[in-house]
């Protein structure tokens, strides 16, 4: 996943400088531009043009306003996630969204990539946390949407439009977030299983559980091996169902007991629990699994939760390792190490995608640039895609921002 020799990188020091740079670029040089924070999601989407200028957002990292007692914060988008997390923790607050590579990843990048992790089941994703933002369009015009209050329907919700837009509509420069209190503790109850089929009966039972998990994670043995530095137990289970719980310690322990009573009746016999620091390692491992490396082709699939196990069975037959947010229907998978050619990758990606689409969802591969055309990154064409193209044309008519990244042609 290499971007061949990126141009030397402009790094605006202020939001005003950002506007000036983009305005000048739109008027004079007219380079294609991709906003880059921590550089952790450059592999995402179609291949960027090799002459695309990387616009470094990381100098925009000021805290603009943090009225902690309002449970909102306004920061510049280039702030690193780790720095934001530490700041919020000092007030016993958090964002509630698990973002991998926190020392590198920026808030703007996480927003533009719509990154999330295991807690999305209980805490939602970026679209639920962003209540306002400022952004700069390709012509250097700054605009804002939303505001600094948690209840606001004035104007169109352009915050939602920008979440997941991968730098193709505007450069996000400042974000206001709705925050959550930090829970007293968190823990996992993990169930080793001999088959994915066994997992389905447990997942079905969980739809009516008396507990309220904040994460429902299903991953196979080969993924567990990758989580091994974070996984407290060695075991040869075929797959694992791990349920995350948060709250007061009493609350978490009660839920461990209650959910194991529920699942025991379905012949789940072994339960391993981790709470506090032990759980922290597992949260981190499950969050980081989605990080892709250039050598190993990978994918993200979305399916209806009731079809997760069927999809995973197919992925398993093909030799993939996978971890999934099973109650949300989100799967991260890696093709086997033996996949060395694009044809071999296609022979797996195409049927997996067909399976995901049949389950009402989609599949997006992550792979070397050279393979992206064959495998098809976006691979959707339906009337709503036309609306997306319209939006792109309205906001970036000259096609300067990350051209080709989502649709391939614009």
């Amino acid at each position, binding site marked *: 996943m290499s971007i061949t020799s990126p141009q030397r990188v402009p790094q605006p020091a202020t939001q005003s400088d950002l506007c000036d740079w983009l305005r000048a670029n739109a008027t004079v040089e007219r380079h294609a531009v991709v906003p880059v924070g921590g550089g952790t999601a450059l592999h995402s989407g179609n291949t960027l043009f090799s002459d695309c200028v990387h616009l470094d957002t990381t100098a925009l990292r000021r805290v603009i306003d943090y009225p902690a007692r309002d449970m909102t914060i306004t920061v510049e988008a280039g702030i690193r996630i780790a720095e934001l997390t530490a700041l919020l923790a000092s007030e016993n607050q958090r964002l509630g969204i698990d973002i991998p590579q926190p020392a590198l990843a920026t808030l703007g990048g996480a927003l533009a990539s719509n990154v999330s992790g295991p807690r999305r089941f209980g805490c939602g994703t970026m679209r639920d946390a962003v209540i306002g933002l400022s952004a700069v369009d390709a012509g250097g015009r700054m605009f804002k949407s939303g505001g600094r209050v948690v209840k606001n329907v004035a104007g*169109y919700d352009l915050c939602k439009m920008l979440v997941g837009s991968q730098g193709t509509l505007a450069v996000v420069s400042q974000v206001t977030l709705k925050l959550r209190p930090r829970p007293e503790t968190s823990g996992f109850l993990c169930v080793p299983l001999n088959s994915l089929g066994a997992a389905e009966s447990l997942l079905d039972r969980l739809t009516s559980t008396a507990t309220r998990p904040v994460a429902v994670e299903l991953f196979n043995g080969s993924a567990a091996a990758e989580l091994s530095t974070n996984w407290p137990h060695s075991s040869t289970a075929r797959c694992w169902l791990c349920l995350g719980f948060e709250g007061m310690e009493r609350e978490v322990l009660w839920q461990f007991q209650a959910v194991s009573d529920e699942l025991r009746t379905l012949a789940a016999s072994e339960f391993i629990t981790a709470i506090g620091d032990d759980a922290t390692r597992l949260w981190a491992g499950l969050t980081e699994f989605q990080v892709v490396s250039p050598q190993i082709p990978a994918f*993200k699939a979305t399916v209806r939760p009731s079809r997760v196990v069927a999809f995973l069975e197919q992925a398993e037959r093909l030799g993939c390792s996978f971890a999934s947010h099973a109650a949300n229907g989100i799967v991260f998978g890696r093709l086997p190490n033996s996949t060395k050619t694009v044809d071999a990758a296609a022979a797996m990606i195409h049927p997996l995608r067909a399976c995901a689409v049949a389950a*009402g969802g989609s599949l997006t591969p992550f792979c070397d640039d050279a393979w992206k055309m064959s495998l098809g990154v976006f691979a959707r064409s339906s009337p709503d895609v036309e609306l997306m193209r319209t939006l792109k044309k309205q906001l970036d008519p000259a096609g300067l921002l990350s051209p080709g990244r989502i649709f391939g042609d614009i």
Partner: protein
Amino acid sequence: MTTTHAGTAKKPGISREVLTRLVEIVGKSGILSAREELLVYECDGFTIEKNSPDVVVFPTTTEQVADIVKLCNRHEIPFVPRGAGTSLAGGCLPIGGGVMIALTRMKQILEVNLRDRYAIVEPGLVNLHLTNHLKGTGFHYAPDPSSQGACTIGGNFATNSGGPHTLKYGVTVNHVLGAELVMPDGRIVTLGGTCEDTPGYDLTGLFVGNEGTFGICTKVIVRLTRDPVAYRTMLGIFNSVADATQTISNIIGAGIVPAALELMDQGIVEAVEAAFHFGFPLDAAAVLLIEVDGLEVAVDDEARKIISICEQTGAREVRSANSPKERLLLWKCRKQAFGAIGRLSPSYCTQDGVVPRTKLPEILEFITATGTQHGIRIVNVFHAGDGNIHPILLFDERDADQVRRVLLASDAILEKCIEMGGSVTGEHGIGVEKISLMSKLFTQADLDVMALVRDGFNPTGLCSPKKMLPTAGACGTEHVERTSPGRRAAM
């Protein structure tokens, strides 16, 4: 722009040819065109601005909606969708007449899938009917605006409706996975779906709250929420509004997220007591309805913390609901508070401002001072937990001077909300009522970008014309300077 009232002569805006074609699409029983039949549709919950549509049609399928829209395009006739007409901002006002497309006959629940936690419903389905349908399944539909007994899911989609539980559970957009729409050019599109994270742009999120200006919603895919296991519902009684608002601020500041936190001041309590006899103390300056929900093992602790905070800020008393029946009674009095206002004055006007939670004491003081300054009585019942205020200005609209003062007071309050870093609308929408405030909340650049987005989806402007965004220099926005605000109070 002229407001047209019933009985005045009006030029026909729809040709016989178009009328015939509409009858072909929806059938004779699916159309209203006689002047007296159109009366009901000349305004919504914002009753001061009125304009009659030329015709109202009642499609029963998406294809019919698409055919109607294409017909309107061919003949350049404006069209506007309408659900139950409960909009408090004039969202359903048919500016320029044209075809009103009422979705009320499209009210089916098409699919309920508990395993995958979604339901697919038609836009005319009444909000409460969905949750009632789900009773006993262990799931409900979370957004519950106070008008939920009448308002429709399609209308909720259009305005991104809230309600008292948004503090913990979010607003409509947080519970919508996708939708089917007829675009302003008649194309049928599906946004999102039954899965999360649809690749590409989050069009669903962008379209929720578009107030009918991007197209007409013909199906909604909603997220279903597990019923909470346990509730603790309390009523804090305070000797001053300042104590009550400080309590709210302290509860949020302590990192507690109640399921609901609603304030009613003395004026509203008086009206509610006279109407419903709940046993509220008439001499309390304010009462706070506070609810926590969650696991049985956790709610008592949270309730205790809240009671302690109330006592620290000088609550005279904190009552707890000891049974589901008592809980429902407490909620009934809150949800029916607006219905009791008729006892207080012939007309009222409500605002929908928002301020950061910590500024609640300040804005409530400002509201009191503004009322005094303009000689207008103002009572308050609102979603305190998320800073969404609903000051209710009481007056008699037959008195032109009172009307003038109400306008001044309303504007002062909303401008103060803006000054405090808030918003002019937390849940009712801009509609036509607040178009003049958009340029106080947003810069020209902000409005230009919003216009770009809208023009991409609605280039002709025939769909819901002159809503939400100010039209630069065009005739048609003068009326929203509001010559006469207010609403006749429901008795």
